[in-house]
């Protein structure tokens, strides 16, 4: 059916999420593997990046890029991310719709083949990845890990996550660790690769005019030929801590101009209520620190003029809320106090119908526009990968629109402060 999501089971734990439509100029295909986030995520984190460099038919990065250029500049992008304590490895492609090809080639199907070649027929020598590629990719992984420090917003956020979730797997960096990356070998990466394909929860998302049945059949063939032994996928589980006990405080210094304040809260969700409470928590977080109508924007920025940005974000898979702001060192206490005041004010019932309306209207807009780009449609299927039940944006929106003031107040009451991280700038201002 046109313009709706369809799910096809290809093998145990391997699904195709397709969304057929003719309204775009492009198509989109992504290959996603979900695995438990390991304490040291290095061996899995490197996989999409090393696969992205070559395959048996195109054994160098340059050869592979030439092939992509010939496919009208199709893009191939590797990435890793965390969804709670699930590690998601991803390779995604965007290509022109086949109708624009100059020689009647079915571009989307050609790209699907190339993507499956990259995943199932890597440039390996028996049971090992190519030594030279491994050496180079390890350095690039270290660079990626190091580069996060260049962006102080990301750096401060990572530090807060690490401190807050010190004894939870969530504290792992999705890129791995310096030592873990250094210890990787052509053989250990190959073992991780085999394990990922055999035990990971896999989805291939297809958006555009492509024939998804044909892609499903192709995927089945690749799995068979590569002798991937699929039974059931590994169990994916995220520990959720409902409430914080005592507040952890860490202050660090770096030679930068602007200080960064990051506050981590436990959202009062549990593993059982994580999906049912999502809509309420989403609206609460949005009113607290989402759009320009939110309490944090209106007060910490507009009224008190303390910062350029101050916002709150719900990490639904982990049941935590993160507040971030860039401020002068000497304003840290004032800002922290005001952020907590705003939360307390919500918990005390200081909320109107207008607040709910602003938030649900903005969320309605955000969810409705999710079907306007192939990338967003793919991303929606992607974030649903580990959910128990697949929901469409429309279905989630319906729940959001039923949220009441009382529910938001009750949700705000359950939020507890866990960690306050302050990155102090030691650079003298100009």
């Amino acid at each position, binding site marked *: 059916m046109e313009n709706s999501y369809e799910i096809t089971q290809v093998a145990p734990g391997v699904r195709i999420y397709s969304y057929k439509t003719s*309204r775009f100029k492009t198509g989109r295909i992504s290959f996603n593997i979900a695995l438990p986030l390991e304490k040291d995520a290095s061996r899995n984190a490197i996989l999409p990046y090393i696969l992205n460099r070559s395959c048996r038919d195109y054994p160098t990065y340059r050869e592979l890029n030439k092939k992509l250029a010939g496919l009208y500049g199709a893009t191939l992008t590797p990435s890793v991310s965390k969804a709670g304590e699930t590690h998601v490895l991803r390779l995604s492609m965007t290509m022109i719709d086949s109708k*624009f090809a100059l020689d009647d080639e079915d571009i989307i199907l050609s790209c699907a083949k190339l993507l499956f070649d990259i995943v199932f027929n890597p440039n390996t020598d028996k049971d090992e990845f190519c030594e030279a590629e491994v050496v180079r990719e390890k350095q690039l992984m270290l660079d990626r890990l190091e580069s996060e420090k260049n962006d102080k917003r990301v750096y401060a956020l990572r530090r807060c996550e690490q401190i807050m979730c010190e004894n939870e797997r969530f504290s792992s960096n999705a890129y791995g660790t310096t030592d873990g990356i250094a210890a990787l070998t052509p053989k250990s990466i190959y073992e991780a690769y085999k394990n990922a394909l055999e035990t990971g929860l896999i989805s291939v998302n297809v958006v555009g005019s492509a024939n998804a049945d044909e892609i499903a059949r192709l995927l089945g063939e690749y799995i068979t030929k590569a002798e991937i032994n699929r039974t059931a996928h590994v169990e994916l589980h995220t520990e959720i801590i409902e409430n914080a006990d005592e507040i952890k405080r860490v202050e660090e210094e770096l030679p930068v101009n602007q200080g960064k304040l990051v506050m981590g809260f436990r959202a009062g969700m549990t593993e059982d209520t994580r999906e049912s409470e999502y809509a309420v928590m989403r609206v609460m977080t949005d009113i607290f620190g989402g759009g320009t*109508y939110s309490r944090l924007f209106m007060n910490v920025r507009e009224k008190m003029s303390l910062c350029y940005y101050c916002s709150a974000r719900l990490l639904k898979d982990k049941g935590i809320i993160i507040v971030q702001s860039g401020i002068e060192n000497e304003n840290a206490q004032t800002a922290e106090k005001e952020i907590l005041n705003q939360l307390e004010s919500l918990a005390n019932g200081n909320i109107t119908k207008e607040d709910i309306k602003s938030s649900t*209207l903005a969320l309605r807009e955000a969810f409705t526009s999710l079907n306007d780009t192939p990338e967003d449609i793919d991303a929606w299927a992607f974030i649903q990968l580990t959910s128990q039940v697949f929901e469409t944006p429309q279905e989630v929106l319906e729940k959001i629109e039923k949220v009441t003031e009382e529910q938001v107040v009750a949700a705000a009451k359950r939020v507890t402060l866990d960690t306050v991280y302050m990155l102090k700038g030691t650079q003298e*201002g100009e």
Partner: protein
Amino acid sequence: MENVNIREIKNELLGDSYFEIDHKSGLKILVYPKDGYASTYAVFGTNYGSIDTFIKKRGEDAVPIPEGTAHFLEHKLFESEELDAFERFAKTGASANAYTSFDKTCYLFMCSSNFEQNLGILLDFVQHPYFTQKTVEKEQGIIGQEIRMYQDEPSWQVLFNLLRCLYHKHPVNIDIAGTAESISHITADMLYECYNTFYSPCNMVLACVGNTTVDEVLGVVEKYLEPKESIATERADYGEPFEIVSNYYEEKLSVSIPLFSLGFKEHADGELSLKDRILTSILLEYIAGDTSPLYERLFSEGLINTSFGSEYFMGPGYRAVLFSGESRDPRAVESAIKDEILRIKRDGIDPEDFERIRRMHYGRAIMDYNDVDGLANELVASYFEGYHLFDEIDAYKTITVTEAQTRLCAQLDVDNCALSVIKEV
């Protein structure tokens, strides 16, 4: 509609059309309906950005204004004596924003319902400035923090350090937001003066893309656009010489891997044709894109990582080719790029590689026609730059390898370039 001239601009290949409307007020309106889309994206922009550090009305002397005024004005226009623009959009759900670049200031929103109401708010708030000394002072605190944030962004600093190496006088070498010092001189009166000069309909454009129609847009424009005197302004001649200021600058910041930006300055007088722009983008791919031998070599030697890229950086009075990325040895990257430019200038361009890159760029150009936000912003940019949106996709069909060769010889002067580096503290 009376007094409006509507032209449909079609592209057979894409199967799309947009409409160009000359409104009687002097405002240019561009409407690009997209079938099957839920959302609409609207941009209301003025041809006034950070490089406009002077008010110059036609026939009058140039009057200097503080650096960062265009950006400051952008922040302040959201305010009003009653409900500010953000509060008004909160009642409709639209997400609104604004940005200031070197040469323009744009206000925008995206929505999937209440389009007419939202467009009314956009037109209304941009036409009704409200500044007081008190609100100006409040904004100095917020923008002061925005400036501080950018001072800690190595990629931003490496670019502006480079621009200060390349440009003597052209204000592209100053930060878009200005400095804490420069914005401290901004007053409410100054903002009104800039507003009245640069925000006249003949200096502005409205672009709407997505789930909308010409009639719908014009209906709202008729209702909300108020007559206003059109003031003709000119961009100052900055008297920028061809030569660079200095060929190297280094700064220490808290970074893990050094960042670099290598810029080749060009003459920037006369019109730059769209064809020459496209040829340059193909040349950059040919010289240093991820299908090039140079990229393969630098990459396998560990001299660059995946952050490496190139761009043609140009606007009113400035043109330069930039290569940027992270490297532990920026000097080695610089010399490899220069050597490769000289080699290709000497050996010529391989026709087969040229064809492949042409095909790649043709595909990438088509890919740009999906997103309503990208298209609306591109409609505004192409209008201010003096060409039609679809011209680009057509230009890919006609360019030749000989033209690319000629273009290469006219740019990328290895004796007129500078390297900016950010090293770890």
